[in-house]
């Protein structure tokens, strides 16, 4: 369960979002500049709300009135950034392994192979991010987040720069992940994508939640 009830002022832009999602995949839908990235930055702990509460399951991650702010590295929340943010000094393999190493988890070669195969990045393992194409970078970022074994996944347009063929390969996998029980917050402006994946939709418009509910709210958009 994810509970968000926050306000945040960024320059002239004000974000006031309040929703509770039982859904395993919360689809965050909204136009460019609606505040989607800002909102998931707060869930990840990278941006502190001016006021409000963020809670995941029974753990309070942020509570400004109580002065609670769990730092990002203790949240175990995976994040696929809109701008990949691969570590440029590490090769693809090291990027993929980074989360596991930082959390001191044992290596899981089977899982590693499964994910690199799915994302078709197995042939890139020894390359550095500077030599990847845009879509390849995005796939590595997705793989890196998945391999860090998070308890919640934030995905900021993870399939944005991928071609249809690839999207259609990856989406079912994300559906499977969802069904295995890893909750996600999924940002997209592709209604079709969200219909396949999301179990609950939060519609954002200029920093306000304008609709909340099942995927059927997408048709009202």
């Amino acid at each position, binding site marked *: 369960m994810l509970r968000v009830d926050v306000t945040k002022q960024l320059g002239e832009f004000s974000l006031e979002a309040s929703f509770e999602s039982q859904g395993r995949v919360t689809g965050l839908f909204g136009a460019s500049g609606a505040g989607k990235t800002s909102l998931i930055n707060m869930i*990840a*702990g*990278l941006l502190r709300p001016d006021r409000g509460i963020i809670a995941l399951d029974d753990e309070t991650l942020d509570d400004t009135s109580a002065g609670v702010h769990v*730092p*990002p*590295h203790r*949240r*175990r*929340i*995976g*994040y696929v*950034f809109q*701008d990949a*943010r*691969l*570590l*440029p*000094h590490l090769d693809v393999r090291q990027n993929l392994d*980074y*989360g596991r190493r*930082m*959390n001191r988890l044992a290596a899981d070669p089977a899982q590693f192979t499964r994910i690199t195969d799915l994302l078709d990045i197995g042939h890139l393992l*020894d*390359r*550095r991010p*500077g*030599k990847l194409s845009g879509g390849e970078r995005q796939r590595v970022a997705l793989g*890196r*987040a998945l391999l*860090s074994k998070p308890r919640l996944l934030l995905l900021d347009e993870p399939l944005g720069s991928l071609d249809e063929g690839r999207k259609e390969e990856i989406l079912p996998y994300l559906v499977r992940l969802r069904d295995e029980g890893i909750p996600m917050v999924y940002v997209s402006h592709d209604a079709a994508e969200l219909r396949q994946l999301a179990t609950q939709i939060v519609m954002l418009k200029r920093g306000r939640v304008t609709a909340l509910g099942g995927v059927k709210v997408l048709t009202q958009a």
Partner: protein
Amino acid sequence: MFEISPAEWTAILLSLRVAIIATLVATPFGIALAWLLARREFWGKSVLDALVHLPLVLPPVVTGYLLLLTFGRRGLVGAWLADHLGIVFAFRWTGAALACGIMSFPLLVRPIRLSIEAVDRRLEQAAGTLGAAPWQVFATVTLPLALPGVLAGMVLGFAKAIGEFGATITFVSNIPAETQTISSAIYSLIQTPDGDAAAGRLVLISIVISMGALMASEWFARRATQRLHGN
């Protein structure tokens, strides 16, 4: 022209030892301080910053004199260190290393600070979301990405340590085989009417040493940037 006397050899080796030790010991402190100055706000920050630059601003003899008063056998810190930890700087090569380390400290810190400031914080954030605690982020992201600055700082510091003599000779004097570095040897030779040829020879040697250090650092830096920007 190119016969090097045993005494000169001693000075050369001593210089190398002093400059290497000074650079290696100062580097971790320099990195820590650079990080503080680049990434933290705290009370007294600008005083600390000024303090770091002080050895640059003061004539070296003044720094040497202050070191003598502080770390000398009868100096406040010097006496305490000698009594309690058995560390003696006064009139030892360790003192020469201390003087060189302090004189080159501002040159070491600035480039490192500059590089740390230039590290993209969004990458540090990304590491954080992957579970890296702040010290892990520093060790695995910030520091590797600031490597060019660390190398530049170390080169400047090393070169300065080779050339330093004003503070050194004032602090630990010019004792052959103990505190006489190439630079102070050059100084002595320059003071003697017929010492020019020998001085010139030592000058060449110190140029060669620093050329070596420079080229080594360029090589490292090139490898580091290749790792960053290429494969």
